[in-house]
């Protein structure tokens, strides 16, 4: 007992002595991250909000003009309303939830097999997520290339389905669908790994108990046991899927090789920002589009929280 009390006293003394030191430690350890976070994440977001209320051509000083950019965006910008917004919704609604569902489904199936084949297959499925944008552009551009050396064109000609090569990446009828295929192909990322780990770590006894309680099939097992016991991973996966879907918007430009994409067929909101920001130098307007994008991501993530959160 006395020993314990001595220890307690010692601890208390350490804490008292260490108040200033404690603060300094917290300060120095947190500083590098906080600094970089502020400089390249927080301030840019604040900056974008401020800039979105101005007219700014990057040469003259920004000129305050209130919500005019937003009003223009929502009422005057024909390209945004006619192509960019529907395209963005189509792409991100298919690649986001679609990729998310596919991630969960694949992770769940992987959990049903033994560890060695699982590791190999999981590696194969995760492969597209580690390769990065440049690689994706190289591969898919050569696969869908419009001349006869393009692999898919050559195959179709060889099988006699078509007689002359299709300009897949320049043809508005194909570009969006190819973008969705590529988006889904690379959607099994970090959220997929998290869900796989989550499913494997669910408590086995829960399953045994559930079968005794009368669960009859795999489907009920997933609904009543798997998903409830890993909903925190489900939420993490959902947020990653949403962010991933909005983040991968550059692929239309990467595939077609031009911004704007042919007849705006693959134009997503990210390309619209670049078009206005870095090609027309209408920085204020581009910032307003950025804010709209961040709001969209935030809105969808809120929805995911509503679905999977503990409360």
């Amino acid at each position, binding site marked *: 007992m006395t020993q314990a009390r001595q220890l307690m006293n010692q*601890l208390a003394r350490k804490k008292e002595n260490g108040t200033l030191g*404690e603060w300094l*430690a917290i300060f120095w*350890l*947190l500083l590098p*991250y*906080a600094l*970089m*976070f502020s*400089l*390249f994440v927080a*301030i*840019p977001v604040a900056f974008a909000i401020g*800039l979105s209320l101005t007219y700014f051509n990057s040469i003259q000083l920004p000129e305050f003009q209130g919500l005019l950019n937003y009003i223009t965006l929502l009422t005057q910008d024909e390209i945004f309303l006619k192509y960019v917004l529907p395209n963005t919704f189509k792409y991100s609604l298919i690649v986001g939830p679609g990729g998310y569902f596919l991630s969960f489904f*694949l992770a769940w*199936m*992987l*959990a*049903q*097999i*033994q560890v060695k084949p699982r590791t190999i*297959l999981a*590696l*194969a499925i995760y492969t597209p997520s580690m*390769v*990065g*944008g*440049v*690689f994706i552009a*190289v*591969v*898919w*551009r*050569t696969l869908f290339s419009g001349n006869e*050396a393009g692999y898919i064109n*050559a195959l179709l*000609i060889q099988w006699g389905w078509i007689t002359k090569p299709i300009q897949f990446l320049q043809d508005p009828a194909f570009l969006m669908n190819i973008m969705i295929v590529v988006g889904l192909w690379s959607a*099994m990322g*970090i959220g997929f790994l*998290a869900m*796989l780990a989550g*499913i*494997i770590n*669910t408590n086995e006894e829960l*399953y045994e108990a559930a*079968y005794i309680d009368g669960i009859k099939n795999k489907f009920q*097992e997933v609904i009543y046991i798997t998903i409830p016991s890993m909903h*925190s991973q489900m*939420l*993490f996966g959902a*947020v*990653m899927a949403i*962010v991933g879907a909005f*983040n991968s*918007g550059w692929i239309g430009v990467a595939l077609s090789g031009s911004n704007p994409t042919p007849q705006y067929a693959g134009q997503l909101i990210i390309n619209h*920002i*670049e078009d206005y920001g*870095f090609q027309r130098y209408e920085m204020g307007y581009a910032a307003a589009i950025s804010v709209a*994008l*961040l709001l969209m991501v935030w809105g969808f993530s809120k929805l995911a929280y509503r679905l999977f959160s503990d409360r």
Partner: protein
Amino acid sequence: MAFQGTKINPKRFDKSQLKFYFFLIPMALFMVLPVVYIINQAFKPLDELFMFPPRFFVIKPTFQNFSDLWRTSSTTGVPMTRYLFNSIVATSLTVFLTIMVTAGAGYVLSKKTFKAKNWLFSVNQLALMFVPIAVAIPRYLIIKQTGLTDNFLAHILPALAMPVGLFLVKQFMDQVPDAVIEAARLDGANDWQILNKIVIPLVRPALATVGILTFQVSWNATEASSLYITNETLKNFAFYLSSLTNASNSIAGVGMAAAAGLIMFLPNLLIFILLQSKVMNTMSHSGMK
């Protein structure tokens, strides 16, 4: 034994698992197909690259594309090896510094008590939804203001704060019992020693995961090279590769682009294979509330 077939994470093979293989194997093949394609492209000699009808697999593999690539330089006369060197330096520094920065911040957010702690963590969690491309313009203006344009640091600094990384490290550090840290403190260790000698070794899987994610971002990044840096000798390999493919109407370009794509891809794959068990370990603590 009847239960074996329906179990999660089964220990042995059962016929009932066949249906999963039936679906998983074609999916896995579809996923790696483009990679297999690029590997074959990279080793094809010129006549096979332009053969009609094209063949998927290489017949007479050659290193011609690689040696061509090795000797090339950009239109401005910067040799390809310079870009590769820049990428290697920038990526190693970024990975190392990100791990250090994240470990420090994660330790504070997990093991210290102070007022703003929960608030800071929720700000970071909000930043998980951050889409970097959306704020490319303000970022560009900040880089310009801080004098980082045409500075090698423009490759490194913007990548150091990684919200997902901090999130994973903090969640993982929460598993380290406070008693371990308290004991070390009683033995007279200061925060720096506790972090270095006790916490970092215990959370190595999470830090390895942060390292991998940072590597993937940094190695594949073209943003800094195309927006912040105009000095050709400071640009990186990913940027060189993308300019190579944009100009690939030249006949020899196709094979070289494939070879460069393979060089981009291989380090990613090797590092992930080496560390995959650590990644999976980290991911089981990735729960979000």
